[in-house]
């Protein structure tokens, strides 16, 4: 055990001694005095002057007889209690300063919170989630100390918090999370056993972080950030427990001193008015349960629909009364305003997500010795919170790819007549009810011929196929296209792009790619503004109507007579502009035999694209396009394969939303097995 830990423990034992005498009527407090004397000696050895003085004062005080103290026993006890508390405080402060090398207590408590202010709300909510998991898993671990899954979960939790805190510049949180993480890593490595003490320590760590998160949150609506002091005592005990000396990257004494020093007073005052703006905004905010918010948005969606029903009711249309018409129009305006406001409650700006990428760019460029500067545009663009959260992964992936494979080294760039530092651009903008996110670099771009050769050699396309430029670029999204080898072979922008596209598809979005060799590559992500509403295509199959998500639909047409033909008498195909496309009947996919088409009229062929593959889907009629609020089919039905939910249609009936991906996926699976 380290000296510091011993001293703190000695002081703890004074508290215990004192507490033991609380409700009794002791002869004197001499044991307390003895312990205080010992503590003073220890502090002297460690040259902690203020702690020593405080401990001495306590020792003297405890030798007083209640009478000679001139007051009652109760008063003496109170005086002792106060003195011990001060001793604890002094010792912790002094040890902390010793460990960090910072002289004034004010400096120790202040954190480097400059540009990170915008990310703090995210830090608060995310850290809270992780702390909840940590606490739950710690308790589970207490029940079953041999289980390894909780250890991993706890480790991940602290690890993530460490990362978040690092990004936000919350040094003491980062440090603490790191220390606990080190401890857990030793448990994972089998060099440390799970004991009640360890769990206790980890819980204390999470409590401290919780306090810190609370403090950060309180400071958000405009207050000044009063962070809890660096938990020196706790850190000491943690390190003592894992048997570690503070290793070089843990308390990071040098960087802690260096970073605040770099911040000149001028910079600090510049940053102040900037950070005041978002704080003012937050000043009048309230916390709302997201479930309630969802319900509100849901109900408003219904209101919009019933308002439309009323407005378009033939009975109402028949009335020619200007006042009524005016009022109905007013109702329509108000409803649509209300809908906009309700939707806006769930949206957040994309900015903080972009800023997190800035950190990634910095770290990655350092690591691979390239130079890049990240530019951002349209950080104010807003979209649904859940989409932003689920966008982080694909964004990170694309940025990583851009730096690893897209950007050239400094020498290559100079040789190509480019500026030494690569330019990465993250840009967001709205376009016809969608948000488009652009991730571009000015790197080496993609060599079409190499991609094509690669795809041919991997058997992904026929060697004689005539592909357009866009189709060739699209090949990198094919699963199985990207391999480690591909990275070095080709200009290498294909790593895991199939995963990226899957994630974007899950958000009902699309990815597009543009690239000019030698000039760079651009990825365009087209995403809906919210997941609660989809643009749907209402189609009729027999007597039933279904809604399919419009984003998957490429084109719709009535095939000519003879355009549909069969293979082996059962597989239908269509000839669409000289290419053969497999045809599926929606009625059959949904196993609606009784509603198979008996229409004399020719059916409608809807071309859908799923994971770069095209299918023709036969329905009886296309009824129209409609925005619908997605609803679950209820807990009792749960998840029905092939369906993604229901929606209230314009006439008040329920329409079933089909999940084309899983329907067609199941069909392909059935055909191949």
């Amino acid at each position: 055990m380290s000296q510091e830990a011993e001293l703190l423990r000695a002081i703890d034992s004074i508290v215990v001694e004192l507490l033991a005498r609380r409700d009794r009527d002791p002869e004197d407090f001499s044991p307390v005095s003895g312990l205080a004397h010992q503590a003073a000696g220890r502090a002297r050895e460690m040259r902690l002057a203020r702690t020593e003085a405080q401990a001495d004062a306590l020792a003297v005080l405890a030798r007083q007889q209640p009478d000679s103290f001139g007051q009652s026993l109760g008063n003496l006890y109170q005086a002792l209690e106060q003195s011990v508390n001060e001793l604890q405080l002094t010792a912790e402060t002094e040890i902390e300063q010793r460990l960090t090398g910072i002289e004034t207590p004010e400096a120790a408590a202040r954190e480097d919170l400059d540009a990170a202010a915008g990310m703090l709300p995210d830090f608060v909510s995310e850290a809270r989630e992780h702390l909840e998991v940590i606490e739950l898993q710690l308790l589970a671990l207490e029940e079953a100390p041999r289980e390894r899954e909780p250890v991993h979960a706890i480790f991940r939790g602290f690890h993530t918090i460490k990362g978040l805190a690092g990004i936000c510049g919350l040094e003491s949180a980062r440090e603490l999370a790191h220390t606990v993480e080190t401890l857990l890593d030793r448990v994972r490595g089998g060099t440390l056993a799970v004991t009640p003490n360890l769990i206790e320590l980890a819980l204390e760590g999470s409590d401290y972080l919780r306090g810190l998160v609370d403090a950060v949150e309180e400071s958000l609506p405009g207050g000044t950030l009063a962070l809890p002091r660096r938990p020196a005592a706790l850190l000491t005990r943690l390190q003592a427990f894992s048997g570690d000396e503070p290793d070089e990257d843990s308390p990071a004494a040098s960087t802690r001193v260096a970073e605040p020093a770099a911040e000149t007073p001028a910079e600090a005052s510049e940053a102040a008015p900037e950070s005041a703006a978002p704080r003012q905004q937050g000043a009048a905010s309230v916390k709302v349960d997201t479930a309630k918010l969802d319900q509100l948005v849901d109900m408003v969606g219904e209101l919009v629909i019933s308002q439309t029903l009323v407005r378009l009711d033939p009975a109402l249309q028949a009335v020619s009364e200007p006042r009524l018409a005016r009022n109905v129009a007013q109702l329509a305006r108000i409803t649509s305003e209300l809908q906009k406001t309700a939707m806006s409650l769930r949206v957040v700006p994309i900015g903080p997500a972009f800023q997190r990428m800035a950190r990634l760019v910095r770290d990655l460029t350092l690591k691979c010795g390239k130079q890049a500067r990240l530019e951002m545009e349209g950080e104010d663009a807003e979209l649904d919170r859940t989409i932003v959260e689920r966008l982080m992964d694909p964004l990170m992936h694309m940025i990583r790819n851009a730096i690893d494979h897209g950007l050239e080294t400094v020498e290559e760039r100079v040789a190509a007549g480019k500026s030494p530092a690569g330019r990465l651009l993250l840009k967001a903008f709205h376009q016809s009810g969608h948000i488009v996110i652009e991730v571009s670099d000015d790197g080496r771009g993609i060599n079409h011929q190499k991609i094509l050769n690669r795809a041919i050699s991997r058997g992904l396309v026929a060697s004689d196929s005539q592909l357009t430029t866009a189709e060739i670029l699209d090949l990198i999204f094919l699963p199985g296209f990207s391999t480690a080898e591909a990275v070095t072979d080709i200009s290498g922008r294909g790593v895991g792009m199939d995963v990226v596209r899957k994630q974007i598809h899950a958000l009902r979005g699309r990815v597009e790619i543009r690239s000019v060799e030698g000039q760079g590559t651009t990825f365009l992500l087209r995403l809906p503004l919210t997941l609660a509403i989809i643009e749907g295509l209402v189609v009729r199959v027999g007597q039933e109507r279904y809604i399919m998500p419009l984003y998957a639909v490429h084109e719709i047409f009535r095939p000519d007579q003879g355009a549909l033909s069969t293979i082996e008498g059962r597989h239908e195909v269509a000839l669409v502009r000289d290419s053969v496309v497999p045809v599926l009947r929606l009625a059959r996919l949904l196993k609606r035999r009784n509603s198979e088409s008996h229409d004399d009229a020719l059916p409608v062929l809807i071309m859908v694209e799923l994971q770069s593959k095209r299918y023709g889907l036969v329905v009886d009629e296309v009824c129209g396009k409609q925005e619908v609020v997605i609803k679950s089919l209820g807990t009792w039905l749960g998840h029905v394969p092939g369906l993604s939910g229901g929606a209230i249609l314009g006439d008040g009936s329920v329409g079933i939303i089909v999940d084309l991906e899983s329907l067609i996926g199941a069909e392909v699976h059935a055909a191949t097995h």
Partner: protein
Amino acid sequence: MVTLTERSGPASASSGATAPGKFLTFCLGGEDFAVPVSKIKEIIGLQEVTPVPQTPDFVRGVINLRGKVVPVIDLRRKLSIPGAADNERTCVVVMQPEGRQGTYSIGVVVDAVSEVLQIQGSEMEDTNSFSHGLIRATYIHGVAKIRGKVKILLDIDSVLSDSDQANVGELMA
């Protein structure tokens, strides 16, 4: 008093479904059923039901109940009672059974709703006490003898629980 042997799960044990009290009675193919009014949310006329593909045949589909999507089941089919065509007396009783994740709403198509009855404990009888093992009563608590007629005390929780949130849809997969 009635003892229950067929049921399982804490939900039905605590539901007090066979406690005396007010019951809604309705008929299904000539049989009279009773369900405690505490389980009834409302009674609505038969409206257009949207069929849901890939679900068992006793699931008629879903309806729009004031903005909420609520599933509707055909109790006749579920209990294998020979079906009659829908007529003007056919209606949907929206019930609130207890499931593993709490109560939920579900519409039940019945031939006709009869009345709300006060049933005394003395009027109730456990299935086992009279059936001598001839009747396997999975879905019923017992019977009530009212004015010389038998009303089946339906255990609505367990009727729906064997295809409960374990995802009715998945059963078909």
